[in-house]
């Protein structure tokens, strides 16, 4: 019994290694920025990693909403044509310097704070931070009080006012609960990258980098060391997982 289990895990390990090797040699000269290691499905997340994102606003094109539409498709978010109450996990924001008229375009979403105010105020424990730094809403426990929405300085959370009938099976969503960016946790747990990051790269902007900010070898850490990355509202001392360049 135990022997066969060992063999199965060994086999899957060998397969994964082979896949990784094949992926690395996909084409000569192609530089792979992130080779994420998928954790085994039965393994719990640990605080050895902290997922984060670095957004280069100098590469983010104004008018491009590839990340927003990718997020909506991935998570089954549909508009009810009521912009004031429609759910929104990621949005494009334009900052304009009044003096110089210089404009910056950037995507804004849950910043996955190390000390999230939404978690502080949640009366039921539905708002929580996973060990790997991803801030989530456990909709099984959420009572829809929307306290977290008031506490969030980034206006990152939305409330599902209406019945959700276009859910996908890996992102269950429903009426009467609060929701926000999950960093595509269903993808991340399987070694993937968030849909927005992928869409940004596909649109050839490459303004978003996703990775483990605790791993000094990761692309995001190297970029952060080299160029730095600013927090929005750093004065609040939340130590956000999403950082920006060029603001």
């Amino acid at each position, binding site marked *: 019994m135990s022997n066969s289990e060992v063999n199965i895990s060994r086999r899957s390990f060998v397969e994964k290694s082979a*896949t990784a090797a094949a*992926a690395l040699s*996909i*084409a000569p*000269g*192609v*530089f*792979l*920025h*992130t*080779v*994420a290691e*998928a*954790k085994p*499905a*039965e*393994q*719990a*997340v640990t605080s050895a990693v902290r997922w984060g994102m670095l957004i280069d606003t100098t*590469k983010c094109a104004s008018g491009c909403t590839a990340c927003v539409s*990718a997020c909506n*498709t*991935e998570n*089954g978010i549909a508009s009810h044509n009521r912009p004031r109450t429609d759910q929104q996990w990621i949005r494009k924001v334009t900052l304009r310097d009044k003096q110089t008229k210089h404009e910056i375009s950037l995507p804004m979403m849950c910043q996955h704070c190390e000390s999230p105010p939404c978690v502080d105020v949640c009366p039921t424990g539905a708002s*929580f931070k*996973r*060990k*790997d730094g991803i801030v*989530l809403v*456990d*909709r*099984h426990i959420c009572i829809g009080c929307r306290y977290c929405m008031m506490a969030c300085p980034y206006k990152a959370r939305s409330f599902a006012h209406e019945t*959700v009938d276009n*859910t*996908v*099976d*890996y992102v*269950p*969503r*429903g*009426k009467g*609960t609060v929701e926000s960016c999950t960093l*595509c*946790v*269903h*993808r991340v*747990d*399987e*070694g*993937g*990258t968030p*849909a927005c*990051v*992928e869409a940004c*790269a*596909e649109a*050839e902007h*490459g303004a978003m*980098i*996703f990775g483990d900010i605790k791993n000094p070898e990761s692309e995001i850490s190297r970029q952060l060391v080299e160029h730095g990355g600013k927090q929005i509202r750093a004065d609040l001392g939340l130590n956000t997982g999403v950082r920006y360049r060029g603001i």
Partner: protein
Amino acid sequence: MQQLNKCMHNTLITIAGLAMLAFSVFAVSNFAWAGEKPSFAPDVPHPTNGSTECVQPEDEMKKNHMNYILHQRDETMHNGIRTETYSLKKCINCHVPKNTTARFGDDEHFCSSCHNFTGVSIDCFQCHMDRPMGEKPLGKSPHNAQISKPVPTKVAGTSIENTEGASNNE
């Protein structure tokens, strides 16, 4: 007068006893035959994918499926453990036919066939899908997103070579 009361009392006890006896005979006639489903029990649809064994023996699942699912729910939500065995998604993928028109609430749906009968209401399917999902919206599985696309990095107005070749793979 007192004697009359006592007589009535005895009669009532006898009637009650007879009623209980009649009920137990009825109950036994319904349940006694091993393997035979009582006529009033619901028709629970069996998996259509050919599998004959559940993740636990049938009796255990009948009694305790909710505990397995609840435990897995918290493990997945809070610890990112995404094993399939006890996940609600696995239940649905196995027990509900792919192109079914039955929705939760219909007697033909696997979950509601029994839940309607027992009068136990659940709210799983206010959020979760009550049927297997077909094609993923993007037409690709999250599993395929193992490696992020090469990011075209502009260095002084020129992009690094080979990145265009890679994007042609799409």
